[in-house]
């Protein structure tokens, strides 16, 4: 039961999805499975949330290091959940003017955007201290990066203004993006596609060890 049911379930659902691609009547089953997929996905998110609460409650209870921040996590959770579930007009909870919307704009958004903005500083420091033209490959990479970084802003065209129009750094950036970059992306893309397909095949055939296969 522990091993067989998941393997059979995976294979059955996976095969149905593939068959439905070629044989239209199977779409009825495919649609039903997709609906279940939504429902299970919802529960998966709940699982993550419950886990987070549990871990932090545990942290507070045991008074482990930085436990007061565990309280902040739980408070943060409640601060948005309670208004979102009960005081934001039900299904239209995300409309402008609701308290959920207010929290989204003034708490969630600044935090999330600033988290990513931090990376700008780290890119700068790494580019100074670690990005080296240590071999031919890294040199080509940095050269292409230079042309792109300068060519995508007007600076590139200023410093190459002595070249005839159409042959400046901006055009070089366009050319790199349109041709060599497209070729490289495509090679990676085809490789990834085959990788994804073979891993899907392993999963469906029950051969993927991480999924309990043999």
């Amino acid at each position, binding site marked *: 039961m522990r091993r067989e049911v*998941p393997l059979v*379930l995976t294979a059955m*659902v*996976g095969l149905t999805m593939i068959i439905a691609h070629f044989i239209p009547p199977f779409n009825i089953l495919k649609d039903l*499975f*997709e609906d279940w*997929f939504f*429902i299970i*996905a*919802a529960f*998966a*998110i*709940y699982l993550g*949330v419950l*886990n987070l*609460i*549990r871990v932090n409650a545990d942290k507070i209870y045991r008074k482990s290091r*930085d436990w007061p921040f565990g309280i902040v996590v739980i408070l*943060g*959770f*409640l*601060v*948005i*959940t309670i208004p*979102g579930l009960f005081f934001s007009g039900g299904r239209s*909870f*995300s409309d402008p003017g609701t308290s959920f919307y207010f929290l989204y704009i*003034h*708490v*969630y958004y*600044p*935090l*999330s955007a*600033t988290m990513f903005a*931090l990376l700008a*500083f780290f890119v700068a420091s790494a580019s100074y201290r670690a990005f080296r033209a240590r071999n031919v490959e890294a040199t080509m*990479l*940095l050269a*292409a*990066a230079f*042309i*792109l*970084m300068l060519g*995508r802003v007007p600076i590139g065209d200023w410093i190459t203004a002595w070249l005839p129009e159409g042959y400046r750094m901006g055009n070089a950036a366009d050319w790199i*993006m349109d*041709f060599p970059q497209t*070729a*490289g*992306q*495509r*090679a990676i893309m*085809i490789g*990834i*596609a085959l990788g*994804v*397909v073979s*891993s*899907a095949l392993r999963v*469906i055939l029950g051969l993927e060890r991480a999924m*309990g296969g043999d």
Partner: protein
Amino acid sequence: MSGEVVGLWIGGILTLGIFSFIYKDNPFYKFSEALFVGVSAGYWFVVTFWQYFLPKLIDNLVLAYTVLTVEGKIDYHWVYLLGGGLGILMLLRLFPSVGWLSRWSLAFIVGTTAGLQFTRYLESNGIIQVKGTILSLFVWGDLNSTIGNIVIVVGTFCGLIYFFFSKEHKGAFGGAARVGVWFLMITFGALFGYTVMSRMSLLIGRMDFLFGNWLGLIK
């Protein structure tokens, strides 16, 4: 109006809280980070409740129940109970003794994704990309397209050779693989440039918020 002002101040202070990390790790940053973790979890909780859970599960079951009570018929919407059941199995992971049951629902999710990906990737990223690379190597009277097409065909070909693992990179084959690496490196360079661009844009956005919206220094 005053709500807006309060909101701006909350946003401004939290932004500074996260930024304080670049000086060094400190309680102000830890507070903001912990708040972020809690608020995102709450955000997802609320959104899933109203937009997955209610319409996909509860609404369908209510419909089934209504049909049963009004018409006395067993409606096909009852099959959603099975979906809901698989969902509940997922939560069992919280209890170690019966946690293995969550593998059933996981198997369902994994199977669905694998099945969908299998054909889609072959079609969109495989066949259609191959088709897109079938380009004429000589375009009459158009040097630009001729060179461009040759670059795409040669680049894709050599890139694939680099990712071909069954033959050692020696001789002509090794040469082609080497050209392939160059194409990959140019691609990664472009990616590098674009990633830097992206990160800088985010920082600009936050700076504009701090100095413009919040402090009102940029008009």
